[in-house]
């Protein structure tokens, strides 16, 4: 199997390090850094700067972000522009008595779902989001502000795992659609 890009980079770095330094020398420098870190604990300001630097580094590609990603917010999950809603199509369960990963009373979560990959503006990381429909009740009637239809990386129905036009109510008592949640599955690779 051909090594991945990251594996190639890792291998090159390792070889370079090995060729330019003795193993003991490396251990010595790492040990010095660990001791120094203990003697001079990082101040909160420095930590904040470091964190900001990381986000800035991840945000450096702002020119390539989608319009949704540029405008996404992380404070109100009952709005369509909440960052996890980058590829949702439906009514937000948080507007219907449920929450971002909670189905409203009397409904059932679908055991299967479509997924999206959305960027969190707070940490600049991308996460895999499971858009699980809540089923078994007629469609939630709520504010039109809670009816969302976004499409970052959304694919046609012949790629169903990332297609958001499907009523994902398979395996529930009935396929009546009520609303949609947006649960974090994990960090995207």
């Amino acid at each position: 199997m051909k090594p991945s890009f990251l594996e190639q980079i890792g291998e090159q770095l390792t070889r370079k390090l090995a060729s330019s330094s003795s193993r003991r020398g490396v251990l010595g420098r790492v040990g010095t850094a660990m001791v120094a870190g203990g003697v001079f604990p990082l101040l909160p300001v420095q930590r904040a700067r470091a964190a900001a630097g990381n986000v800035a580094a991840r945000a450096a590609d702002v020119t390539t972000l989608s319009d949704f990603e540029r405008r996404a917010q992380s404070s109100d999950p009952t709005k369509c522009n909440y960052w996890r809603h980058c590829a949702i199509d439906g009514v937000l369960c948080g507007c219907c008595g449920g929450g971002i990963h909670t189905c409203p009373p009397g409904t059932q979560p679908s055991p299967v779902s479509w997924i999206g990959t959305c960027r969190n503006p707070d940490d600049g990381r991308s996460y895999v989001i499971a858009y699980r429909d809540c089923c078994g009740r007629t469609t939630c009637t709520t504010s039109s502000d809670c009816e969302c239809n976004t499409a970052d990386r959304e694919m046609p129905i012949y790629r169903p795992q990332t297609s958001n036009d499907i009523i994902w109510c398979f395996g529930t008592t009935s396929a009546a659609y009520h609303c949609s949640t947006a649960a974090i599955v994990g960090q995207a690779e």
Partner: protein
Amino acid sequence: MTCFSRSRYLLLASVVGMGVSMGGMAKAIPPVLQPEQSDVASLPPMGDHSVLVATGEQSFTLYDGDKGRILGTLPADMVDNIAIAPDRKDIYVAVTMWSRGDHGTREDFLRDYDAHTLDLTHEIELPPRGLAVFKQQNLELSQDGHWAFVFDMSPATGVTVVDLHEHKAARTVDIPGCALVFPWAHDGFSTICGDGSLTNVALAGSNVNVTHSKPFFDANRDPVFEQSQVDRKTGKALFISYTGQVYPVTLGATPVMGKTWSLQVAAGQPAAGMGQQEQAWRPGGDQPFAWHEADNKLYVLMHVGGYWTHKQEGTEVWVYDITTQHLLQRIDLPSPAKGITVSPDTANPQIYAMLASKKMAILSATTGQVEKTVEAKASGISIVPQP
């Protein structure tokens, strides 16, 4: 009466009497209105300027495009699918419902309505079918009117072939990894698959022969729209990708791929790429395409945006000559539209634009002028009869 004095009563009576007699001099007393019989309207043969609009997530509403008036209504929830028979004598609705509203026994069936009376004439039982937001490509009919093809998803995918002459489901064909229906000119249909290929199903009596094409588009990076178009009379399809690449394919057991062209290059612009901030005119919406088969023109709902804006409403309709692959016309819409369709006539074709405001704008396809605007409560989807 006890409150009135006799004199006041006489005065009042004389004033009323004068009013009646003066009115009588000016105008004859109108005849008494006659009792009426309740009756039911029926429809003339379906004209070219008829359009069925998905309205209010509960119904399809049939409009007269010339008058902008409602002709009748068919019941259909947001996940139901609808199709007009090629001879325009029947309208079919594929339905899923539960016996007790949101629970109970699930029933899937195909309803057959008489297009003249809108009476329900048959209900054909179906196996569980796919439930997705309605797209025309979920329910298609063979050009001879013999077969209906119903896309199923459970979530395994298949197509149920319904014999419309016998009024019964004939069989279900599994199409693993594939979806939607694009009918051939005769006896078969193709479906789009997740690897960018087609699965092709030839009907041979009660049997089917299934073949697979090689991938012809990049499904990972630039998939073709579900709402890609097919000319049902010829079986020629135009598969159109998110970036605007057009893949002409003559459908059949062995599909014949034509030369790919670009909606943007055909308009004298650079081909659109896949950058999220790469602004370009792109196709998009709930129903972005309409193929006027008699004129061989493709109408496309276009907007300016980056990649992944394939659901965004369009601000203009671009009209292409499919034969020469050139842009003929750009039509400004009164406001952004979610979907379009075009009447099949050549004399005075109309564009039906389902606006984001839920109004329907009826435009002359020739001049681009708005002829009517209707408070239709429209979603993005509408269908018209075939030529």
